[in-house]
Structure formats: structure tokens, C-alpha cells
């Protein structure tokens, strides 16, 4: 455990020093760290091994979230891993129970309270397989209590012959977490695959700032011989739009760079806005780099579709009005103006008052769900109103309040 603790510390330090770049990278590293933790976790008591795992992951998760509360991807992944643990345990037990030909009703009754299966969560879980099935276009005739993955389901049944030891559970969890990591790794490709359906010939696409997802998305359309134009708003104050424009031009895309302030002037010529975001909230609103709300409003004014491309790891089960969500990060003012040039306006010693010049540099904007036309995730395209379904699919309600320490089991907030 010592080396695990070391890993956790290391990663927490990295997070707190803002040394991990990008939410995808953060998500992947978080998932890998959690995988290591789960694999190292010793299974002492056979009765509540899942609870032990959940507690461990929760503890680690809290630390990581505290280290950098702005990066919501950490919390998302921690919650998803928790969900996976619950899910696997549930399906394992369900498998056992099915084998011993017991009804699902009774099975729920027998659930121990310690296994965190509140009735609300259970009912969700019973609902879930159908919804997931419709989403992924899988066959709807799967047994309701089984895990969507048919192969794994098979696995469970095979394993169930042996004693349903903690090892089985662990192995299943590991597999699921591996799938998650794989999903995170391939999310760009998955999203990019949908580009051809969304970008049409001779269209003009506008984007703001720089997002790797957007870049892959646009390049994928280009590779499929679509010819279209891209307008890149430079994305002050970091001007990462310049980087994106360079990259796109290198790939042979017709690219135009504009200032953020001329977005409104350009929007009437644009057929679609495609942007990357920082996080997608449970209500379908997004947290995105500054200036995005302006772009969204301009798009709405001219009835231009506003498409958000985001991997599912950016899907945050919290609502933006939740006090736990740190919506914004106030960055260094020197990105806006040079300290040397303006230091005379920031004199503290003259008069008794605070300096007259304040420089604010927020990193993010909140774009309300009304302004978003479509989410393109690695599981397909969704409207903002559908996000809650995705959330209920990837997260379990018990894990939402991850940061509330020492909360009694009964008080789990089920109010999403």
C-alpha cells in the first residue's frame, strides 16, 4: 500500500500544481491510478469487499478532487469507477442469484444496507439496461439484471461456478476499468468518426480557441474528402486559436483567423459552430473557455447550430448551481497585460485605498443548455435535454456527493 500511497501523493501534487495537461489526459491518468489502487487492494473480508473498495476509491477520489477542484474530469472518473464497482458487484450478485433461480424482487430485499443499494439507485439500475441498449443500438432482449456486455455476462456465469470470491469481483472491475481507460483513449476517434455526418460540403465551420477534440473532428472530415472552410476565433487571452489555425492549415484546411470580437460579424456566414468544452454539466449546460457564451449567443441569434464535441469523461454528474462545483478558475492577470507596463496603476502605497486597477482573468464561461444545439460524444450525438440520461447511465446516485465527508449512509442525496 505504501507505494500506492506514494502514487496517489505524486498525482495529487501534480494536479495541485496544475501540471497535468488537458482533461483527457487527466481522466486517463486518474483512471490508471484507480486501476492500480484497485489491483493492489487486498481483499481481507469476503463479505463486504466491494464496500472496502468503494471506501478506498472514495478516499483517494476526495484527495484528488481537493488537489485541483477546477478539473472536473478527476471527479467524473472517480465516480465512474465507483459506479463500475457497484455495477460489477450488483451483476455478480445478480448472476449468483439468477443461478440459484431467485427472483429479482427478493434479491433486492436481501441486499445489505452496507452495499449502498438504496431503493432509488436500484430502481435506476433496473431501468438502465434498456436505456443503454437503445442508446447503443444493442439488442433489447437482454435479461434486465445483466450487464450490457454480453461477453462479460457470460464470464460472470462461468465464474459463478467457482466460489464468487472477491477475486472474481476484482477481475471484473479491472476489466471494466480497462474498458473505461480504453474509451478515454479512443474518445477522439469515436467523436471524429461522426464528423462526416455533421459537416457537409462547402460549409463554413466556426470554432473558438484550441481543442484537440475539435481539431481531430475537423481533420477527420477533411480526410473523408469533405471540402469546407474553418473560421477560428483566436481565443483571447491565450490565443490558442492561433495554434489551432496553424495545425488546420498544415492539414490542408481552408482556415480563417478572426478576433473574438468579430465573431458576431462572421456568424451570419457560418453554417455550424463546433467547439470543445471544459466540462458538460448534468443539466446540459457547459463550462467552456471564456468567450464561448458570446459565441453561443451569436449563433443563437443567427440560428446557427452550436455543436459541442466532448468525450464522456467530461460529463459531470453535478449541476452548475452545486456549491461544490468550482465553476471558474481565476488565472494570472499577466496573461492580459504586462505587469511592468501597468504597475504604476497598481500602487498600494498611495492613499489608503486598494489599487484602482484590478485585472480579472477568468478561465471559463458557462453556456446554458438552451444555447447548445447538440452534444457529440463518443457514444453518439445527444441534445442537452438528454444529458441527464447519460448521467444516470454512467454514474450512480450514491456517488454524487463525493466530497461530503462522513455522511451517514441514509442521508445520501438522491436529489440530482
Amino acid at each position, binding site marked *: 500500500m505504501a507505494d500506492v500511497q*506514494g502514487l496517489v501523493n*505524486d498525482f495529487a*501534487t501534480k494536479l*495541485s*500544481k*496544475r*501540471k*497535468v*495537461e*488537458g*482533461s*483527457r*489526459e487527466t481522466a486517463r491518468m486518474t483512471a490508471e491510478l484507480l486501476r492500480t489502487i484497485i489491483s493492489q487492494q487486498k481483499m481481507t473480508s469476503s463479505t463486504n469487499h466491494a464496500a472496502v473498495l468503494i471506501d478506498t476509491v472514495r478516499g483517494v477520489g476526495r484527495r484528488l478532487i*481537493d*488537489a485541483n477542484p477546477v478539473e472536473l474530469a478527476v471527479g467524473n472518473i472517480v465516480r465512474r469507477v465507483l459506479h463500475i464497482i457497484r455495477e460489477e458487484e450488483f451483476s455478480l450478485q445478480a448472476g449468483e442469484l439468477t443461478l440459484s433461480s431467485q427472483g429479482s424482487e427478493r434479491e433486492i430485499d436481501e441486499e445489505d444496507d452496507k452495499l449502498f443499494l438504496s431503493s432509488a439507485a436500484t430502481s435506476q439500475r433496473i431501468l438502465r439496461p434498456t436505456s443503454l441498449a437503445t442508446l447503443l443500438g444493442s439488442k433489447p432482449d437482454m435479461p434486465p439484471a445483466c450487464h450490457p456486455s454480453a461477453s462479460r455476462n457470460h464470464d460472470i456465469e462461468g465464474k459463478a461456478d467457482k466460489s464468487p470470491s472477491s477475486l472474481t469481483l476484482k477481475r471484473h472491475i479491472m476489466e471494466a476499468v480497462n474498458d473505461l481507460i480504453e474509451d478515454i483513449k479512443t474518445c477522439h476517434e469515436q467523436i471524429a468518426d461522426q464528423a462526416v455526418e455533421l459537416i457537409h460540403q462547402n460549409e463554413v465551420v466556426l470554432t473558438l*480557441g*484550441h*481543442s*484537440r*477534440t475539435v481539431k481531430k473532428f475537423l481533420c477527420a472530415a477533411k480526410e473523408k474528402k469533405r471540402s469546407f472552410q474553418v473560421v477560428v476565433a483566436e481565443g483571447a487571452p*491565450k490565443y*490558442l486559436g492561433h*495554434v489551432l489555425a496553424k495545425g488546420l492549415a498544415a492539414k490542408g484546411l481552408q482556415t480563417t483567423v478572426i478576433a473574438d470580437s468579430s465573431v458576431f460579424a462572421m456568424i451570419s456566414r457560418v453554417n455550424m459552430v463546433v467547439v*470543445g*468544452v*471544459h466540462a458538460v454539466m448534468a443539466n446540459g449546460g457547459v463550462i*467552456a*473557455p471564456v468567450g464561448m457564451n458570446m459565441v453561443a449567443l451569436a449563433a443563437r441569434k443567427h440560428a446557427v447550430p452550436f455543436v459541442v464535441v466532448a468525450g464522456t469523461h467530461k460529463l459531470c454528474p453535478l449541476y452548475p448551481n452545486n456549491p461544490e462545483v*468550482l465553476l471558474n478558475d*481565476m*488565472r*494570472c*492577470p*499577466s*496573461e492580459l497585460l*504586462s*505587469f*511592468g*507596463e*501597468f*504597475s*504604476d496603476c*497598481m*500602487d*498600494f*502605497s*498611495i*492613499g*489608503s485605498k*486598494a*489599487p484602482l486597477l*484590478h*485585472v480579472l*482573468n477568468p*478561465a471559463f464561461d458557462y453556456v446554458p443548455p438552451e444555447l447548445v444545439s447538440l452534444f457529440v460524444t463518443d457514444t453518439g450525438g445527444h441534445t442537452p435535454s438528454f444529458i441527464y440520461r447519460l448521467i444516470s447511465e454512467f454514474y450512480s446516485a450514491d456517488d454524487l456527493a463525493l466530497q461530503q465527508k462522513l455522511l451517514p449512509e441514509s442521508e445520501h442525496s438522491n436529489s440530482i
Partner: protein
Amino acid sequence: MGTQKKGASRGSEDPVELARVPLQAILLADSFTTKFRPITLERPKVLLPLVNVPMINYTLAWLESAGIEEVFVFCCAHSKQVIDYLESSEWFAQPNFTVTTIESHNSVSAGDALRLIYERNVINGDFVLISGDTVSNMSLTQVLQEHKERRKKDSNAVMTVVIKRSKPSQITHQSRLGTDELFMAIDPNTKQLLYYEDKADHAKGSIYLDKLLLADNPSITLHNDKQDCHIDICSPEVLSLFTDNFDYQHLRRHFLKGLLVDDIMGYKIFTHEIHSSYAARIDNFRSYDTISKDIIQRWTYPLVPDVKFFGNSSIKLERQGMYRASEIGQSRSAQIGPFTVIGSGTKIGNTTKISNSVIGEGCSIGSNVSIEGSYIWDNVTIEDGCKLRHAIVCDGVIVKSGAVLEPGVVLSFKVVVGQQFIVPSYSKVSLLQQPTKQDSDEELEYADNSGGIAEISSITHTVGKLNGEITNQPFETQCWPTSELGTGGAGYVWSICEGGHDEEWRHSVAPIPADKLSEAIHAADDDLELTQDGRSLPPSGELKPDSNDSEYDDDGESRDDSIYFEKEVEATFLRAVHENITVDHVILEVNSLRLSYNKVAADCAGGLFYSLMKLALETPHDSASELVQATTNVLAKWKKLLKYYLAEIDEEIEVILKLEEICESTKEFAPVFDKILYQLYDLEVIQEEAILRWDDEKKDADESDKVFVKQAEKFIQWLREASEEEEEEEEENDEE
């Protein structure tokens, strides 16, 4: 968004590049100054909280994030405390970041410290030299690369100094960081530092540049808008240089300036200017204030209170730059203003107002307290109704109800301020007696610091005892002089050393008082005014000797000088009159004055004549004729003196012009101009040729200028006729 993190991780871009040689840094955990006394008598400066985090954490966090792998922390004063702190902190447990402490008890300066480190032989490559009170978020990658490239080309490039542009006004350094104005000469092409002066003489308003500096370099730029960040990239030679020159003490004053003037070894120092990133050193209370506020305003991002860069408790940033820890007890009626930091466990009472301040952990603040621009450290008790403005209040202080801290007050550890007591501004209060040896002057400090160390250690010893006493006994039984801090108060008010009071406002945490500020601005404006109005100033106007005009330099200065010169001549002359000094001696004296003021004989003549006339005017007279008589007498007496300076016609004309000037300004002389002129002629002070030439010159002048010419018309007429007659006679003689 994959890219949003980019800005945050500046400095860690290419660890591969930097990994080849482990990057080392020397962190001096001792400033070797006494600017933070009395606080630093009990706790080392690097452990003083800056926005609730000990200063050294900012420096270490920056070094770590900038890719430094090995840090040697040099501890001297209170070395035990520093080492204990570091050991209990998590700095020793960092992966890829080693912190090693070097302890010394007899180092009195940065020079000694570096010599000791050289002896240890631990530095084996380029290193960063920094003191433990520097806050920065700059990236070292570029400057290190520049330094290394320069080193490859020229092994004499031993040091790179990081500088930053500061605001260019004259009061900049003063008002922001409380430091003196800094002048630097930099080669604009190579960025080589050629000249460094931080103690420029303000009274003179001038700096001294070696002529060779200008001769040797094709172009130099002179800056006074740069700020020294006190972050240096050094080559290992720097350490050996310190060892070779055992008299180097101060890093800047001795080492840097020493290298700059030393042209035998040819060592070179270069500069690196940072633009967007932040770097500043806490040198005194004023910079403590300024840097704290810069941190709160997030210029030092990511080293800001709500980012847990190291070991600080979680604090949330709320609207208007308010930072609040999660566990605070704040009354609903309390008003917490903008740009305030409140540490965890602090309780704030009803209707208390706090603005622009930093409150530490575990403080309890009563009701109706007003706190403005103050720094309150941990576990401080402030009772009801207190007023604090621009004060620094250290750990464990108790301010009893109704007490007032005026701007600039510093209360050291565990001081108790009595009820209703008003602590006067700029006072420094400590439980420790002020050391008898006042070494506020830094120059002195090196000399007596060996003693100072012993003194400090003995003092820390007494601190322990004192603390014990205080906890054991109730305050009332203590024999504190009640007068010093009110009833029930505990602590000594340190007297301000002689001459120090004037300086106190410069380094204080309080804003510069309005009068001092207006003075400073006025001084700056004065210089400006001179450049504009140099010409129009009345000739007798009071001018400062330091008017260093640029544009009207010649004019203003000579005018200036003439007035002084004339005054001096007059004084000399009057002394001669009163003390009966012989004419020869007066001539000697006036000559020496002439040389020192770089004047010509005509000026002397004019000056002397002016003095003569003044003397004549002062002799009692009833009528104009008597005045003429008096003048004649004076002139007759001092004819020889005046004549000495009238070798040429031009000088005689000068005298006439002077006479004209005097008559213009003095009513009594005006009607008798012609008479005096005649007397001058009669006494053979002035030849007729001079008068005639003066007349000729005046022909084209304005009517107003001709008043005296007209007055003397008859006399001039007579002179002309006389000369014509003479000529005729001569002609006649010739004819004969």
C-alpha cells in the same frame, strides 16, 4: 479542453533537456539584514507568513515547479527553526526534488554563506542563487538556456541576473517595494550588464558613469525602470570568486559591483528581462505589503491562496477577490471587504469591518472591530472595538478592547496592547528589549554581526524563558512598564534610532503619508518645472543647486551660477570693506571665486561694481547729490580693485551695462545715471571709447532701453566733440 492547462505548467516544459545535469539551487534562508526586526529576533524571516504561508514555501514551490532538482538551503540565524520547519514539512519527501540544509552559525553575510558552500563542494554546475524571501512564477527554461549558450561562447559570462520592468516614474521603487532607485546600464545587443547602482545619490540627482564604459561599448542603454528580481543564474566560478575575494559580503553591493569594475579578470554579467511572469523579493515591510497584495490579486498564479501549491489549507476564492477558508466563524453582520484572506478557524464578531487585509488561522476578532490593510497572523485575539490600520500583528498578540493601532505599527509575537491604548504610528513593539547596538545601517551590520549572532542566540534563549513566564503568570503580576502599552499591556516599544524616523515611512507597511508623497511628487515635479521654466525664472529667484535640467541646461545653470557668484563676490567685498582687507587680497579672493565658478573678468567687474554701488547706496545720504558724492568716494577708494578687472574695453562696457541695470532697478540711482557715468570717466575707471561704443550699441535699441542713453546724451556729445577736437588737433599736428 486539452489545452487549458498549458499556462499553468510553465517552467516544466522540457524536463528531458534539463535532466542531463541535475539543476541545483542555493537558497539563502537568511537575508542578513535587520529590516524585519523586531519580528526576526524571534523567528527567521523566511518563516514569516506571507498570505498565511511561510515565505520559504513560495520560493521552494517555485524552484520545484521550475525544474530545480536539488536545493541547498543555507540557514544561519534561527537555523534550528528553519531546519525544524523544513523537516516537519513535506519538502523532504518530494520525488525528484531534494532539499538539503546547510547550517552555519558564524556567517554574517551572503558572501560568507557562499564561501561556506564552496568549501562543502556540493555545487557542480550552473546553479540558481536566490534568497528565501523571493516570490516568483517565472520559467527558468529560457534563462538557463541563454546562460548556458553564453557560457559556451564565453567562459567569463559567470552570472545572469533576472530583471523586470517596473513602472518608470521616479517614485516607483519607493512606493512599490520601498527600495531605492536602481540604475542599470545594459548593452542592448548582448544584454550585458555594464553598470549597476542602487544607492544613487538623490541629493545630487546624478550618477557617475565611467568614461571607459562609453568608450568601450558601441551602444549602451541606461535604465531606471528596471527592478532587480534577486534571482541569479550563476556558474560555479561565482563561488570561487567569493572565496578569492574574501571581502565580498553583499551580493549586489560588493560582488556584482566588484565584478563590474574589475576589468582584469574580465568576468561578465548578463541580464535577462522577464515580461509576463512575476518575480519580486520581500526586502522590507513595504514590499511585504505590496507582494502580499500582488499574491491576492493573483499576479503570482499558480502561487495563490486557493491553489494548494504546498501544504496550505484549502481556501476558496469568492467574489471580489475574497479568500475564505471553509471553517470560519463569521457573524452575519460582519462586513468582509474585497481582497481579504481569512484563515481557517478564525472567528469574526458582529459588525466588524475588514478590508484589504490578511487574517491568519485561529484568530478571534471581536465586535465592532475595524481592520484595514493589516496583516494579522495566527492565533491573534482582537477584542471589541479595536481599530487597526495598516499594521502587522504577529502570532499570539492580544489587542484589548478599544485599542487603536495607527498606520505602520508592528506588533511582534505575544505582545499585549492594553485597553483603550493608542499605539502611535510606525512604532515597533516586542516582548524583547531593543538591542542596544543599533545596526539599522547595513554597512555597520557586517562589522558587528558576529556579535549580533551571539546576541540573537542569547535573545532566543530569553524568549523561551519569557514565554514560559508569560504562560505561567497572569499578566498583571508581570512587571511590564504599564505606561508603554497601557494597563495590562506587555511589551517594549522600540525607540526609533536616530535619523531613522525620517526613513521609517519608506519601509513601513503603511501607505506613504500624503505629505511625504506630495513631497516626493513635488520633488519630481520641481525638476520638471525647471526644465520648462528655467528661462522665465526671475534672476534673483531661489534656485536649487541640483537643478539638473536637460534641455536648457547651459542657460539655467549659468544663470544660476551667476547669481551665486555675484552673491559671493558681494560677500567677499563687504568683508573687505568691514575688515579693511587690502585690495590685493580681495583680488586674490575674487580670482579664486572666478576660477571656481568658471567666470570671466567681465563678470568679476560687473559683480564688484554692483557691490560698490550697493555699498554707496547704503551710506546715509539725503539728496541725489550726496548720493553721487558717496558713490564717487566709494569708487575712488576701490578704483584700483575695479580697474584690475577692466583690462579690456568689453569689460568696461559690462560695467556701464551693469550701471544701467542698477539704475533701472534702484530708484535713487536712476536720476543720477549721467553723473555717475561722468564720475566713472573722471576717475578713469572707464575710458571714453567704452562709453562711445556703448552709445553706438544702444543706437538700434528700443526706446525704453534708451532712457539712460538720452540722460547721458550731453555727456556723450561732449565726449564726441572732445575726441573730434583731439583728432582735429592731431590732424592739425600732422599737417604741421
